[in-house]
């Protein structure tokens, strides 16, 4: 048996010393902001058409049609933002523009799904890099039961184990209650004895292997927030939010945030790869995406964590500024990123410009205005700025996965 190292043992024992539930504010690692940021990333999987969303384009006479909607409609505005009048965009932008930062002209530098997905999630084009949510959770919330929750895809780089959200979670909340909730599954004294026994036994016989450490973390974690999470989940008003897989997952993640169980959530919404029948399909997908974001804010406000929520929407790349032969739009490297935060000084704002045919322009890193002194924005610039905003840029894990930014941008000043 390989012996557990002293360092590992101390790490393990530190799990045991977590105090009872006091709310996440008290639980986060020393040095973190007093009120931690809860991070949600919604990925538009397949490549979204930002010309039909947050970087709207009108058609240019004599050029290829960029958008069919632009034949009869004008682009719309909400605050300082412009948007395309399709799907649910109007309702979404009107409701949330004060929380939205739009960054246009982000060059994915690829038309390949896997590569675009990797760089949009991680800011890097190196396989094996962690997504921002994983990196953030690894730096700030390793000791929580579900530091990062995921729906669909994930890039962990082995930093921590994500919790896949899906399926029937109710019975897993009050762990020792029978399904009919009339009695305990195990007598309370046995249940407590087993928990303590398991922990003590594991520490005695453990080793340094990754699986063992994951197990050790799982049995030692302070999971006293689960009942609170269930309470929130069951008592939140549903309002106009449809109870579907996407919204339920978001609702659960937010309740888990509030209950001190986790800090980040990655979810992808598919269907954006609209090589045919683009207009209808993209409108439907964007509606799903914006509805998901609206649901997140609706629940966050009820939980009184809206000021702590940072919500990002991104995609692996954009779509062509013209239609193909089957009314679809193909892959296009230029895209946008949307970041939402309540009561922030840097929202209700658009950064970055694209040409009428959806090509990016270099931006000055200080003024954030078009300039030959700058470079075209890439995912690495976005992720670099987000790492700094979240306070993890100099963390040990972030240092393992450098972004190689040629210029540093600050979108949140």
């Amino acid at each position, binding site marked *: 048996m390989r012996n557990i190292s002293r360092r590992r043992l101390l790490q393990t024992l530190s799990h045991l010393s977590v105090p009872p539930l006091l709310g996440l504010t008290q639980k986060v690692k020393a040095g973190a902001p007093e009120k931690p940021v809860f991070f949600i990333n919604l990925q538009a999987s397949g490549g979204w058409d930002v010309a039909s969303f947050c970087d709207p384009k009108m058609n240019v006479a004599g050029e290829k049609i960029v958008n069919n909607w632009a034949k009869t409609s004008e682009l719309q505005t909400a605050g300082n933002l412009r948007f395309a009048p399709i799907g649910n965009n109007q309702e979404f932008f009107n409701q949330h523009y004060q929380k939205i930062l739009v960054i246009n002209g982000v060059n994915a530098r690829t038309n390949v799904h896997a590569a675009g997905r990797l760089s949009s999630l991680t800011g890097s084009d190196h396989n094996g890099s962690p997504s921002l949510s994983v990196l953030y959770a690894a730096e700030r919330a390793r000791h929580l039961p579900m530091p990062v929750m995921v729906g669909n895809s994930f890039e962990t780089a082995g930093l921590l*184990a994500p919790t896949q959200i899906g*399926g029937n979670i109710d*019975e897993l909340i009050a762990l020792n209650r029978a*399904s009919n909730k009339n009695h305990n599954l195990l007598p309370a004294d*046995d249940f407590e004895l087993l928990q303590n*026994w398991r922990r003590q036994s594991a520490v005695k016989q453990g080793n340094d*292997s990754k699986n063992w450490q994951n197990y050790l973390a799982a049995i030692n974690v302070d999971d006293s927030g689960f009942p609170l999470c269930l309470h929130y989940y069951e008592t939140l008003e549903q309002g106009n939010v449809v109870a579907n*897989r996407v919204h339920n997952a978001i609702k659960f993640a937010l309740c888990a945030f509030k209950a001190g169980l986790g800090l980040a959530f990655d979810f992808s919404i598919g269907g954006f790869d609209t090589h045919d029948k683009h207009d209808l399909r993209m409108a439907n997908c964007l509606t799903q995406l914006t509805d998901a974001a609206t649901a997140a804010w609706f629940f966050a406000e009820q939980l009184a964590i809206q000021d702590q929520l940072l919500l990002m929407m991104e995609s692996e790349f954009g779509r062509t500024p013209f239609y193909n032969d089957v009314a679809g739009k193909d892959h296009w490297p230029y895209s946008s990123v949307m970041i939402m935060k309540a009561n922030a000084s840097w929202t209700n704002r658009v950064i970055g410009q694209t040409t009428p045919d959806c090509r990016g322009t270099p931006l000055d890193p200080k003024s954030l205005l078009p300039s030959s002194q700058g470079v075209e924005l890439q995912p690495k610039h976005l992720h670099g700025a987000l790492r700094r905003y979240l306070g993890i840029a100099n963390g040990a894990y972030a240092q393992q996965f450098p972004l190689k930014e040629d210029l540093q941008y600050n979108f949140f000043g």
Partner: protein
Amino acid sequence: MFTSGLYSRVEKSNLTLLEAFIRENGADYLTGKVINTIPHGGDAQLAADSLGFSLLTDFVSQVTGVPNTKITLPETVNENRAATLRRASLLLAGKIPPAAALERMETATDEDLRDAIRQLMNDSNFHNFLTTGANDQLQTRSLKQSYNLSFALENYYPWYAQLYFETPNNFAYLSQVSAELAEAPLELIAWVIEHNRPYTEIVTAPFGMVSKHSARFYETDLTVKQGEFVPAQNFGQRVSNTALREPSHNWNNASGVAYPHSGVLTDIAFLQQFPTTATNRNRARARWTYQLFLGVDIENSAARNIDSSLLTNITVRVDSQIACAICHERLDAVAGAFQNFSDRSVYKDSSYGRDSLAESYKATNYYRLGDTWYNNMPAAGLERLTFDTAATEDPAQQLGKALAADPRFAQGAVKFWWPAIFGTSPESAQLNDADNKIRATSIAAFAQHFREQGFDFKTLLTNMIMSPWFRADPEKINPYRQDKHLLTPEELYNKTASLTGIKDPRLLDDWNLLYGGIDSYNVEKRQRDFTAMMMRVAGRLAASNACAMVTQDFARPAQARQLFTDIELDALPDATTAEQTLQINTQFTKQLTTLIERFWGASHVSRTAELVDLFTALRANALSRQQNNVQDNCNLPAGSVLPPEAMATAQVNLAAWRSLLVLLMTDYHYLHE
């Protein structure tokens, strides 16, 4: 020999020349020239121990499919044979072997172990291992949720349409059909393996697999029971004889087709999994053909960070001058092999059954009547091979044969099955170069033997299980197996059922995703790292089933029990002064040792003393509850026949055994093997 230039066309041309040279002259010729062990009139160009030479030998190994003999695989200490048999049995047969079978391994040889592993492949549960492992790669079980084929079936299969519309609950019918079709390609792979056919037939078999419903609407004249699959040809598809595309407009003016089967490649569930469009043009099918059958991740095979001026100047046909072409020229040719299978996964679905081209393309000047592939795309083929689209054999069938003959096919098979066997990825960005080289060398060695054995899959599987990748003792530092393997939901379900007789479907349904499983629809990638949520699942499963496990087992005659073979429920431990300080006698100790062996494996019997203490504590809890009339919801089965004085003891023991089982089933060594 080589030409210079910046563009991919030059790179590709040079690469093709180099690969041909290596294939024609053998692996050692080029490498020998480079380090001057084969004289070439000049000095050595690279030192034999240099990084450059190491990279070159890796490349040569990839081209030839011959293991890189310049890398010596490290030796390691294997676990004992009984431990290997235990894990192999759980993996392949879904059960923990009987104690006697494990005891026999103590005096067995490696050959005996090989035979025992091979025997496991005769178990009925081996089929589930094959279909689940295959689905982890093909993901066709997505069809159970997507119902993607409903349009194709309704409009191109008259018997399906009739049965669908005749069935009162036609959604239930569609669900059953979708579930059946989702399994067909997985069943085909299993059939090839179970019938000891050369594994290459998974891409060349001149048939597909049918079951109850598909046997009817494929018009096979076979009667097949639900849940069974048999090989058959698809005679059920029609094509239109008119200008209207779908034959459903007039089934009487439609023709049958000679469906060109080529194993999994032409299976409609496989085709729908990788949908195509007028601009995608089968490229997803081609990309996954490379990945699944040749082990080549083409999206990661070249630099992907590309100048946007190139990316924004592309057309549907990727120009050979641009950097994208280094992958696309290979990809697009394979895409052409699927030319007769439409975006609907239907064979020649256009009007008059001529082709499967996009209607939009036919409106362009590129199109000529009679074309079956896009004139502005490379001809169908596989790298150096170009397929004869005028031949009787469909291009997809030619692709199947080309894949089977490709030196990379064997490596593709090893990589395909690697995660199912070892629970890890065959390639990992988290590994350092040295570890990845060891992995690549092992894969090439497995593949070479696989080829030499005529693509005998069961031998490959046995070799992989006998290798240190499966057998290395994780307690000893080694580059192969550093950890026990976290059981998948399916494996944990099988293990629990095998040991206790209790089958709790929640693990495979409600909690499948939470426990790291996949549904092939929303989640395609297994979560192999244990989480707090998984602990809750394991704890819940154990706590909610432990009472039934104990009572059911004790209800059996002693010789028929699975768990409590060494003790009776009303056995009274030896007491010295009081119950609180009781000494467990040898009977109890033996029973605890047996449980450890069964649940955790024989290497953990040293923890018996720990469990003795725990059992003592649990028994004390139970006694205390009994004395204080505290309700315990685990009771003796109604009608238990015990003397009145034994009832109280039995109730205390039952409660203690119940809770002890919970600990056993939530321990690291139960959840990992």
